[in-house]
């Protein structure tokens, strides 16, 4: 993978491998979500919290997901207002 070589087919060039990456992300998310499920039954994991609302089931996961999507959607709306040509100031 260290040599630039146009002839060479890279693993990521295969569209179905991109699907594999997507599913890998899903699996990782499922894995990190497990401790909150365990803590529902008080097995192994006890969340150390500062605020009461951190006890909401999958608080951090949901907060991360919602904030990220919210950020991108708001930014998309802002782009309509803020975007100009590349040489706007020139």
């Amino acid at each position: 993978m260290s040599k630039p070589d146009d002839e060479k087919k890279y693993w990521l060039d295969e569209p179905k491998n991109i699907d594999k990456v997507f599913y890998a992300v899903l699996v990782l998310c499922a894995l990190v979500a497990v401790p909150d499920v365990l803590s529902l039954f008080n097995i192994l994991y006890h969340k150390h919290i500062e605020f009461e609302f951190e006890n909401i089931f999958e608080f951090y996961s949901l907060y991360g997901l919602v904030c990220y999507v919210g950020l991108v959607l708001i930014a998309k709306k802002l782009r309509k207002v803020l975007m100009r040509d590349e040489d706007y100031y020139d």
Partner: protein
Amino acid sequence: MIEGLNPGFILIFGALLVPFTGGIVRSILLLALPVLALTQIYTLGLGTWGHYEFLGLSIELTRIDPLARIFGTVFCLASFMGMIYAMHVKDTIQHFVALIYMGSAIGAVFAGDMVTLFVFWELTAISSVFLIWASRTERAYKAGMRYLIIQVSSGVILLGGIILYYQETGSIAFNYIGLTGLASGLILLAFGIKSAFPFLHNWMQDAYPEATVTGTVILSAFTTKLAIYTLARAFPGTDILIPIGAAMTVYPIFFAVLENDLRRVLAYSLNNQLGYMVVGVGIGTELSINGTAAHAFAHIMYKSLLFMSMGAVLFRTGTIKASELGGLYKSMPVTMVFCIIGAMSIAAFPLTGGFVSKAMIQSAAADGGLVVIWLIMLFASAGVMDHSGIKVPFFTFFAHDSGIRVKEAPMNMLIAMGFAAFFCIGIGVFPGLLYQLLPYAPTYEPYTASHVITSLQLLFFAMLAFALLMRYKIYPPELRSTNLDFDWFYRVPLKWLALAIGRLILVVWNWVLGIANDIVYSVINTTEKTHGDGKALARTTTSSTAVMIIVAVLGFMIVFFYRFVQQPPAS
């Protein structure tokens, strides 16, 4: 070495030798100076040196305490790293000003009084602009001019504040000031400009992306962190800094999502990271100040690493626009790995620098019961995952293949990136080493099961959000564009106003000039009419005619006085 010499002077004096060296000698000099400065810091230990009385002011050239030492240490490391990264550059001016700039930032950190601070403060501004101008483009020239105006203004405001402060207190010692009145307000404003407070921030996003490949890396490490240091020194526990910092964590991330120039994305993300540090200063507890110092340290490492990787891409491909890049993992795989290490570190993945530093500030906010601030910072952390954690590496090295095939980055750049990556991971794995340098006794334990799991949940679900948005083509595409930010106000309406005022002055000036011209012409014309060639008063006459006229006038006067003026009666 001179006893108690401010370590900053080592780089500044060393810079004076640069023009007389070349080749390998210069390379050795450039690398040796930061090492010497770092040695000086730790040989001196803690204390104060260089006391002078100057015009009744107590100057203290060198003061090393734990707060100054951690910033000075990371500045020396960043100088060393920056010099390795710039080793291939043959431009004497860039080497010279870079050393002056880094030296004055280190000097400012170790300044014990505000006059010394002011001198170094201005020196950082004046020297750094040459790193922007070194690009030698029209855009860089203009951006550098705007940068210089704002930076020097910060210095002038600082000087005003220092003078008023001296009148109020009779002291120029640089210690806790606190926001109490006009003097301290001006000082805070000066620090705020360089810390890139909201609406005072655009100089950074404007100028940094226009600097040279190596210049941006060096610029990104010093100016703003110097300002964070001065805030932590003079304004810890100043409440207003908490909302200001929280706004700083959020405001820039929307622009970072939209921006196409990846070095500008990083400048916005730098701004966002400074927000956490400002919040830490505002909370002002031992934990939060420790958090600010630790975050500044870790931040310089991962932010330099990100800027270096994007610099390498710009150096090889000639562009840094996300819309034109993609698929570079095929030709620059090592740079890609370093970029991802930097990206994971800024996003605060466990075992990286950001994880052990940012959490202290987050935790200090929770201890203070600042729910809203805490939630805002957590939101911003998800945002960091987007623009720096994913967007920068993804659109450069993956996304659609742009077809660009280049060589891997030069060896010196890879070594410099390796140096930063080593620190990013080193700090994450052995946080104890960094914690030893902190201004207060470390009490924070980053590696609890809860902290690791909640962080991973936040980050992986943010990543999932990105994957979903890409899969369903909702994620905004990278477009060649300019996004209007606050600088629009001074780059468009204010510029228009300034030009309009200029035109008005021109009109008034022309009008005044016109009237003055008319007056002068009328004087000349009148004179011409009477004294002009052949006119009455300029005519020459013969002497006999002149004598005749004089005799006639005398005769007339004699008759006149004899006939009409009475002799006074004799008394």
